[in-house]
């Protein structure tokens, strides 16, 4: 089965038919959101497969359209229909399929036109249809024809300006994993749901014109408020919040070569006492036990010394110990997990977060589960389809 499996209850999107014309993570993840909850998402592909099927990494090194992990990441639970836009027969098949659809997800209206459907005419003919257009900059405006990539989306949208190292001779560094596209997908998913609610109320569909660029531009967290209010620009810092002025490091290397994140707020008395108690037990508090350090202003004045003592304290322990012992003492410390650490995490195991996803070859692989859990129904993702694979193979 390629479709998502319903384990319990009834999914509210179960009866929806979604046609997807997407080949970047922005549109594909939007389709995956609704597919993983049990909707019938039909992915339209050119005869050779969408672009994402031709991007590595590859499952077990098999370089073919059915083994792209880039494709698997964003296309679980969908079916695939390969259609040749040059074939009149295929174009009419597409028209027939679209006539049954509740929702169309489309990244590029030119592809839609090649398949014989004009977007404006479609909206006129099908007032009940929800069209979610997920494009790099939006369907209107002076940049509507500009191209994007994940790096470009993060750069133009302002996120990249906050990310990188203290050393500003190094350019801003892109956070990994296609997060620029993912921001577009998250908002497109919300917009799709708003449109479903609207249609339930009025019977009418609509065109939803989503912009990856704007999705990034509204997601910079503190950066925009710092400009909107004090007219301050934030400056990037190594692995911690970009700020108008430099703040103390929060990334600590541990004895095993791994890292933890810990931002000590010197003004917080409780955190200070907790940390000091922990250091004292291991006889590593050095002079921080001196009465003068009980004074917040003195700590702040001596922060670089405090920082050095903490650096040594973490460097003689391994990151796992620092993480769990720190948390046991109520300190918000996080270990910088690498990917291989995640399936071994006992907390995630107990919550059964990772699922066994079937693959096109009949084996199963470890795959992340859904980002939300509903008490009224439960689904697990179905496998990504082979090129041209429908519900019945």
């Amino acid at each position, binding site marked *: 089965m390629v479709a998502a499996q319903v384990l319990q209850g009834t999914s509210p999107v179960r009866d929806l038919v979604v046609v997807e014309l997407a080949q970047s993570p922005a549109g594909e993840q939007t389709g995956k959101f609704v597919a993983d909850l049990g909707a019938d998402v039909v992915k339209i592909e050119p005869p050779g497969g969408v672009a994402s099927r031709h991007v590595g*990494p590859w*499952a077990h090194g098999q370089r073919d359209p059915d083994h792209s992990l880039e494709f698997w990441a964003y296309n679980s639970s969908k079916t695939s229909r390969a259609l040749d836009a040059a074939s009149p027969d295929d174009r009419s098949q597409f028209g027939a399929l679209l006539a049954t659809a509740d929702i169309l997800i489309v990244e590029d209206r030119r592809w839609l036109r090649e398949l014989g459907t004009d977007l404006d005419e479609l909206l006129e003919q099908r007032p009940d249809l929800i069209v979610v257009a997920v494009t790099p*900059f*939006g369907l209107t405006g*002076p940049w509507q024809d500009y*191209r994007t*990539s994940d*790096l470009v989306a993060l*750069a*133009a*949208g*302002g*996120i990249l300006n906050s*990310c990188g*190292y203290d050393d500003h001779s190094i350019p*801003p*560094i892109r956070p990994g*994993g*296609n*997060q620029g596209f993912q*921001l577009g997908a*998250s908002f497109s998913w919300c917009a799709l749901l708003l*449109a479903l*609610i609207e249609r339930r109320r009025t019977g*009418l569909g*609509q065109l939803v*014109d*989503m*912009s990856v660029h*704007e999705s990034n531009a*509204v*997601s910079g*967290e*503190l950066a*925009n408020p710092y*400009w*909107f*209010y*004090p007219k301050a620009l934030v400056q990037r810092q190594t*692995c*911690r919040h970009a700020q108008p*002025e430099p703040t103390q490091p*929060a990334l600590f290397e541990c004895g095993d070569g791994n890292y933890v*994140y810990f*931002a000590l707020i010197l003004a917080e008395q409780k955190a200070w006492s907790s940390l000091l108690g922990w250091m004292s037990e291991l006889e590593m508090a050095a002079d921080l036990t001196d009465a003068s350090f009980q004074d917040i202003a003195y700590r702040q004045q001596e922060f670089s010394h405090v920082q050095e003592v903490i650096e040594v304290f973490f460097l003689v322990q391994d990151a796992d110990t620092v993480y769990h012992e720190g948390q046991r003492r109520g300190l918000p410390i*996080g*270990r910088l997990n690498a*990917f291989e*650490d*995640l399936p071994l995490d006992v907390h*995630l195991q107990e*919550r059964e*977060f990772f699922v066994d996803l079937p693959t096109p070859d009949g084996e199963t692989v470890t795959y*992340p589960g859904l*980002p*939300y*859990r*509903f*008490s009224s*129904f439960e689904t697990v993702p179905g496998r990504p389809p082979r090129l041209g694979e429908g519900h019945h193979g």
Partner: protein
Amino acid sequence: MSDPSDPVIGVASDSSRSPRPRTGPLAGVRVADFCWMGVGAVATRLLADFGADVIKIENRKRLDMPRRLPIYKGETRSYGAEDPDPDPNKGGLFNNYSRNKLGITVDMSDPRGRELVLDLIEHCGIVTENFAPGVMERWNLTYPELREIRDDMIFARMSGYGHSGPQAHYRSYGPVVQAVSGLSFNSGLPGREPSGWGLSYMDNQAAYYNSAGLLLAIYQRMLTGQGTEVDVSAIEAGIGLLGSDLLDTVVNDRPSRRPDYPRGNRLEHPTAAPHGVYPAAGTDQWIAIAVFSEADWKALQTVMGDPAWASDARFATADQRIVHQDELDAAMSGWTRDQDKHRLMGALQDAGIAAGAVQNSQDLAEHDPQIAARGTFFELDHPVIGPALFEGFPGQLGASKPDHWRSAPLLGEDNQFVFGEILGRDAETLAELSAEGVI
């Protein structure tokens, strides 16, 4: 400075701030909103934007962090540099997060306060929260208990680790979530410490997922009359965002702790070169350029004026350009270094090349013609702060329009409306509750 003990300070005569029937797809939807900090407030903001009456429940004795953070007009301080005596109505971050919401204050530890909240929950039928695990349990407001108030209750919860499992009680906020989920490890130059994130990315993404979860729950209740609990763990949401790099490790047993990972601004899949962030004219100004195809490379050579270095055999094919990326990036930097990032972005995009100036917030607000044309940022007035810009919904819906009716509520601004007009308490009762610090 306004007096937080007076719930209607300064606004009694401002009828433009009086609650009115809302428009939008969520008009008529009501939310009893316990959310605070960033992740919770952003999640329910989307509902408020599109017409829901989101009633933010606050406690005067424990002000919401964004009310206390000194992000003020005319004063620059870094996050964490707290104002010891903050004006709760002056904080820009709170304004940003809680526009279009109604605001009430109530002390849940007083039985009369609790009774008001239970009434409100019954009236709303949707409860949202992002407290540390255990708070709602101590208040006896778990999902089974909420369903006794209303069988069709929707209850949306947000936390770092989720509400089950051995680490459910661990303390977290954006950067800790990013660390534990792998998103920080995933970012940086090979061979040095991770650069991670310069923002609480997961506060936003977990919030967006929670907005989606709430919308799905509302849709389900419209279809079937059935309520649901929605639980979002930010760490699990973060792992779901790792993409094919995670699968490369768990499917192919390829460790992510390896010398060539993470990759900085370079791509392994698909092959792309040049692919990087290059210096531009000015201090700490940069431009991102992504060349994927041979046609892109040819177009780039033309924009550069066909310099001799670019036709060197080392750069003739994509594979060659990957092998010689260090020299390629150095040559690219030499070309971009003295050019204006905005003009260069335009020239490259006009030639069909994916390129983006690294824009800061001033660029977005004052320079970006796309943001301006699309009206992404909008302005609302606020009685203490004055006019301010807000980050709007990043797309345009043909029928479902946002309804931006008011900036963020002053502390307790809507006590009279919510407790009086909606819940029917008389003026005398409210005056007494106010005098005794219950509301």
